[in-house]
């Protein structure tokens, strides 16, 4: 490829496929320049960030209209991939970014002095997650993970003067950097043996090695893939790499905890799917089925551990951290079902794309319910200056919308019919059931998934009981939120219910996105 060609294609790629990320990057530069020239005194950082996120979201929606069904384009010399799956996550992340910025404006967590820093980190982290969703090369896999992680280390420790905050940030950065190093070593093994980092041909290279599971080359690649999966499992807070999550969430501001629990999970799941698909080739079905079943086992452990440990918690953020771990467990069960189905001879293409779209649907429903829960925690904190279950006591009976929004979100997290969480669980369980026809181990996964829904009832009901059945303790400030915050909570609550009552529209979009990534593989 000549220099001229490279310049021409790069210009086109930047403006057509990469424009959302480009707008966010420009917003970051603008935020920093505004501070340099003291413009941030007149134009608040949150406003600049919000406009940037809205424009990026607009471009992403436009990409849906422009994209042809089932096509995928590789750009930046094979580094990134543009298909409906990428665009789905771009829109998801932009929407979540807009909602998070709105929440930080309402709860005022970065003061006006710090707000350019905070939004720079927030936008930078989101760009990293978008790159995770579109990665087509192992280099981009690593860069995306790092770009999403490094700003989030800082955001966790954003409240500089608090002991808990600094402790949480240190634990997160130490474990996170370690996990990234391990993942990198795994990438070096894969790239060394297969001679390429291009995720489009990893699978065929692996098949060409031959020799079955026992040959040294395949074993080395399997070891490398395990190390990469360990790094991704850390980002997803899967057992046994979950230990950072409760500490980081408890020490971080509730807004940041909400961001980490949804956005960074979404990016990491997109990357997990892309990575597992990249290793799929003609001769790798046996190896990949083992990975799929292993993920199922991890899903069981993660969901069970998260749900059982959450019961004993008194800090609400810590409780929701364990709830986040449990939900990551359900979602990894969907990934496990997807991998098992994809590598079997008997499953139809429809089953495979259904299992992938169940993951995408669950993520979308999870966005609203989890953000709603963390928004309530942040608003209650602003009134009571505490984040334990005591601060929630009697909130529901005070006649404001905080209790109602929390109740809707908790109902959805449990999976009560009529909420988005119910359909999310339904489609995930259905795809696990489909996978059980291929491998009977998936019946065990399904049984544990069902049992976990019951386990989770106990601690979610504890929250509802505190809000509606218990008296407010004397000396704790009442929670009276202003109209803007009420509208925000109402929006999230309504979205949770809409995804539950009218799931078809979202399911169709999720299915299209799922099919687009499979079209290139021929699975």
């Amino acid at each position, binding site marked *: 490829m000549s220099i001229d060609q490279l310049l021409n294609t790069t210009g086109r790629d930047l403006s057509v496929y990469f424009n959302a990320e480009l707008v966010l990057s420009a917003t970051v530069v603008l935020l920093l320049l505004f501070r340099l020239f003291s413009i941030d005194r007149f134009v608040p950082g949150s406003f600049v960030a919000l406009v940037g996120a809205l424009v990026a979201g607009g471009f992403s929606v436009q990409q849906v209209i422009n994209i042809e069904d089932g096509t995928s384009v590789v750009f930046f010399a094979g580094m990134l991939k543009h298909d409906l799956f990428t665009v789905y996550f771009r829109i998801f992340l932009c929407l979540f970014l807009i909602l998070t910025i709105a929440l930080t404006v309402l709860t005022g967590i970065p003061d006006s002095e710090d707000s350019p820093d905070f939004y720079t980190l927030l936008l930078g982290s989101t760009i990293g997650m978008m790159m995770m969703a579109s990665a087509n090369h192992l280099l981009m896999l690593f860069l995306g993970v790092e770009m999403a992680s490094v700003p989030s280390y*800082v955001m966790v*420790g954003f409240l500089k003067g608090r002991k808990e905050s600094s402790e*949480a940030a240190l634990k997160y950065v130490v474990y996170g*950097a370690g996990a*990234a190093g391990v993942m990198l*070593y795994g990438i070096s093994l894969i*790239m*060394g043996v297969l001679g390429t980092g291009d995720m489009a041909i990893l699978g065929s290279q692996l098949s060409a090695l031959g020799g079955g599971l026992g040959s040294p080359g395949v074993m080395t690649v399997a070891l490398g893939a395990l190390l990469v999966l360990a790094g991704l499992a850390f980002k997803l807070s899967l057992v046994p790499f979950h230990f950072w999550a409760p500490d980081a969430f408890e020490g971080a501001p509730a807004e940041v905890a909400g961001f980490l629990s949804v956005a960074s999970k979404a990016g990491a799941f997109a990357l997990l799917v892309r990575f597992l698909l990249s290793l799929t080739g003609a001769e790798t079905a046996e190896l990949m089925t083992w990975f799929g079943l292993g993920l199922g086992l991890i899903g069981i452990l993660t969901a069970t551990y998260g749900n059982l440990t959450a019961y004993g918690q008194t800090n609400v953020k810590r409780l929701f951290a364990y709830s986040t771990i449990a939900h990551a467990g359900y979602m990894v069960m969907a990934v496990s079902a997807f991998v098992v189905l994809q590598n079997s001879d008997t499953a139809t293409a429809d089953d495979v794309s259904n299992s992938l779209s169940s993951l995408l649907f669950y993520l979308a429903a999870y966005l609203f319910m989890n953000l709603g829960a963390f928004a309530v925690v942040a608003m209650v904190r602003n009134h009571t200056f505490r984040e334990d279950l005591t601060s929630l006591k009697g909130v529901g009976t005070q006649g404001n919308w905080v209790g109602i929004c929390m109740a809707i979100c908790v109902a959805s997290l449990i999976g009560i019919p009529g909420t988005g969480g119910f359909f999310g669980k339904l489609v995930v369980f259905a795809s696990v059931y489909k996978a059980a026809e291929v491998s009977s181990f998936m019946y065990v996964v399904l049984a544990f998934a069902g049992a976990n829904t019951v386990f989770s009832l106990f601690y979610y009901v504890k929250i509802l009981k505190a809000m509606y059945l218990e008296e407010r303790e004397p000396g704790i400030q009442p929670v009276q939120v202003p109209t803007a915050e009420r509208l925000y909570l109402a929006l999230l609550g309504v979205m949770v219910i809409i995804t539950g009552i009218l799931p078809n529209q979202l399911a169709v979009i999720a299915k299209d996105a799922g099919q687009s990534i499979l079209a290139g593989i021929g699975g």
Partner: protein
Amino acid sequence: MATLNAYLLVGAVLFVCGVICMATKRNGIGVLMGVELVLNGANVNFVAFSKFTSLGLDGQVFSLFIIVLAAAEAAVALAIALNFYNNHLTIDVDRGNKLKG
């Protein structure tokens, strides 16, 4: 002339030393040094693979990216370590024990 295996051995030793260092050091800075060892273990692998296998220039480009990222990560990690020191007056990671349960 050293063989590929010799380089890979150096990389593996660096990796294991780094992991042991991360797991056993109680000093926050020591843990971060362990992380650097792990990253550089991978770096040695990449450069060796790019010389001896069909990986070619990809490996060297990858290692350049790693060097830049390691610097960025070290900057962030040291800032967080300094903030931890300001709040706790020590860098002993065992003293961070307020968050548990």
